[in-house]
């Protein structure tokens, strides 16, 4: 029974054999948390098991009083009747897949993952298993990520064009992971300083402390009052778009870095001038490849619809089904969150 190892419950994905939850949405006794994004790491549980590489970010998210146990990638530990280990998922710094061995079977819960190279975190490691739980945020074949070198080239060209017009370039992107990945990619191409929204400053410092090399950054809030940002690149979380904070960047050209930017209508709907296709999730070829790499006999698909991915995998001879088929669990994210 797969449900010995994986049982969706109202609190989140539960492992009966090990008596723990993975990325619980409500406070529980024992939690294994795959990564530090808000829809996965939630405060209030009694005990957290996480990967060492992401422990500092987890502390930030879960609070100073949380009890956190950190493990190196590949290190084995026991919970209940199961033996666990955490393996890189390539999503953001410290993101992990959870390998669960118990009741004569190996299950891997991938959490969020990607297959594209990322200078800020360890690359996805295919983990052989019997049961593989995959995300499907971008589960349609229209989603294929362009090489990051092309995207950064476009980004630099946009920045240069803004500089020529004497206006700021404001790039919206997620504060944890996406921002640092872009700053790290930029480090190989420019030595100019990039300005940061306040919500990103601490996270960028965490990445620097973890040894990730990025371009020079400065907080917008630390600059002199009335400073002119003409020709500068500013990174801000999407929530800052349309907020009063934007007033100081008058006439700015705006961009958004996200996998959703692959589709024109999604960009036009948000009203950004430019969309840059950068995602920390697997694209369609990445999803298919990961399913095949792990050699699992059964695949469970989480997130959103996922129906196209399930049907496609079944047509290719895989035993794929929705994680919902094991039990009901609230979907932590809205339709277009996570990118």
């Amino acid at each position, binding site marked *: 029974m797969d449900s010995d190892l994986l049982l969706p419950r109202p609190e989140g994905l539960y492992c009966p054999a090990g008596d723990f939850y993975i990325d619980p949405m409500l406070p529980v006794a024992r939690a294994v948390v795959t990564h530090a994004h808000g829809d996965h790491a939630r405060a209030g549980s009694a005990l957290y098991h996480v990967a060492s590489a992401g422990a500092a970010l987890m502390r930030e998210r879960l609070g100073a009083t949380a009890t956190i146990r950190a493990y190196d990638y590949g290190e084995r530990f026991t919970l209940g009747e199961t033996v666990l280990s955490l393996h890189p998922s390539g999503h953001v710094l410290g993101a992990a897949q959870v390998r669960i061995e118990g009741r004569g079977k190996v299950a891997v819960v991938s959490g969020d993952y990607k297959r594209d190279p990322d200078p800020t975190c360890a690359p996805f490691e295919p983990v052989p298993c019997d049961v593989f739980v995959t995300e499907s945020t971008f589960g*349609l*074949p*229209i*989603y*294929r990520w362009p090489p990051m070198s092309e995207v950064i080239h476009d980004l630099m060209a946009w920045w240069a064009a803004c500089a020529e017009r004497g206006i700021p370039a404001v790039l919206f992107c997620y504060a944890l992971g996406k921002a640092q990945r872009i700053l790290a990619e930029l480090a190989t191409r420019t030595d100019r300083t990039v300005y940061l929204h306040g919500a990103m400053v601490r996270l960028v410092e965490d990445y620097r402390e973890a040894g990730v090399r990025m371009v020079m950054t400065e907080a917008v809030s630390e600059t002199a009052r009335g400073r002119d940002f003409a020709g500068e690149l500013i990174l801000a979380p999407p929530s800052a778009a349309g907020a009063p904070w934007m007033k100081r960047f008058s006439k700015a*050209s705006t961009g958004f870095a996200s996998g959703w930017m*692959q*589709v*024109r*209508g*999604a960009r*036009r*709907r948000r*009203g*950004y*001038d*430019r969309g840059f296709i950068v995602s920390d999730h697997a694209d369609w070829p990445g999803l298919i490849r990961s399913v095949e790499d792990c050699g699992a006999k059964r695949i469970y698909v989480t997130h*959103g*619809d996922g*129906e*196209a991915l399930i*049907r*496609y995998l079944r*047509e290719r001879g895989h035993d794929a089904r929705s994680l919902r088929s094991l039990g009901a669990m609230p*979907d932590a994210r*809205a*339709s*277009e969150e996570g990118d």
Partner: protein
Amino acid sequence: MRRFAALYDALDRTASTSAKRDAMAAYFADAPAEDAAWAVYVLGGGKLKRTATSTELRTALAAETGYADWLIDDSYAHVGDLAETIALMLPRREADGTDTPLHVWMEARLPSLARLESTERVETLRDWWRALPAAQVFLVNKLLTGSLRVGVSQRLVVQAIAQWTSLPTDLIAHRLSGTWKPSADAFRALAEPERADEHAGERPYPFFLASPLEHEVDTLGAVSDWLAEWKWDGIRAQLMRRGDEVILWSRGEERLDGRFPELETAARTLPDGCVIDGEILAWSLDEAHPLLFAALQKRIGKLKPGPKLLADTPVRLMAYDLLELDGKDLREAPLRERRTRLAALLDGHTTTFMLSPEVPAHAWADLAAIRAESRERRTEGLMLKRLDSPYRVGRKRGDWWKWKVDPYTIDAVLLYAQPGHGRRSGLFTDYTFGVWDGEALVPVAKAYSGLDDDEIGRLDRWIRANTIDRFGPVRSVQPTHVFELAFEAIQASGRHKAGVAVRFPRILRWRTDLAIRDADKLDDLRRLASG
């Protein structure tokens, strides 16, 4: 095509109107005239006669990718644009580097598909796709399947040409009016200095459009400065009598030749060199009011109406304005004078042409009271026009206002949803609503607009989580949410399951305060339709 693709990119990569205008002006100044002419045409919303079907495009895509039809359909439903879906799904390969100019695509390549058998068309599409970079695959597919939709209006194209030529926008708008045929000569002619005979030929004058009155009517000043007329619900049209010709133009600047023979015949008795702006209405001579718009729709659809249709549904022209008399452009003259001359022109004339009656009033309050009778008179409300206004170009606020009656409203339940297109792609934004017929909810209206982005997002998530059944891209949902809908008219219809059809339905608000049992009943709608 490379240069046009770069222009398209520039337009697509900014939300700023002035940046779009600058990009187009720079392109017009620089591009070869034979290509720039087609750019004017397609950016202004023009399209070619369709030469390949959606099915052929999908067949070619399936052959090229090996993906199953259902996966292509799912992807299309998510993207909301077939041209883009194809560009996103095709294998990425290096383009072969040759560049086919835009005018060759528009004049030779795309039309050539029409001469092929369906299977050859599919093969030709595949050959083209393989040779093109992804951005041009998208553009060629767009040109093949419809309009470009890149956030550029016809008006903005006109402004860009005016900027490039340093000529007045109204002159450019007039030069592009009617069925402008793209060619290198036609493009160069746009930039020529203004001529005395500018208005001659078959081109219509650009229509002057009224804006909705959104403030209190008494802020318009003295009522004696204004002409009040009924707002008729027909087809706005321009009737030209020039030389031996009678030409009837629709507001969309399409020729209506042959569709309304009674108007063309009657126009032969008008003097040479006159142009009338008016409204085509289906209206029997012995009736006090025009027929419903649905009757007129039967006429619009018929290229050559037969004797029975002509007898059952005769049309007349309600004349609003006189734009030209004795071959002279009158548009700069005040409305007061144009109307006097229009009245004189039509005086003693056939009843096929009626002078739009003035609605007399001494005070705004009188007009407000009369406006309440609009529906009984089969009109949509009142028009208010400043008596000293010239006949302007396009939608310019200030001189002409439409003062419509309040719409009908009903409370209806969301039953079905399907994904939208364009900027709403991937979101469930096309809704079908129903009302109670006994114990059942029957669909009565589809509506797409009226919710804000936040509401659209919330409803989209709810629809995904509460889907009962799927029919292709359409989902039926648990009847839960009630919306207040507005519409302009309602009439009995044999073609609709509910037996009624509503006109211009849209969402007014999400009635979170109502339960589905509070929604309206079909009987109430039937009463409205018969009333």
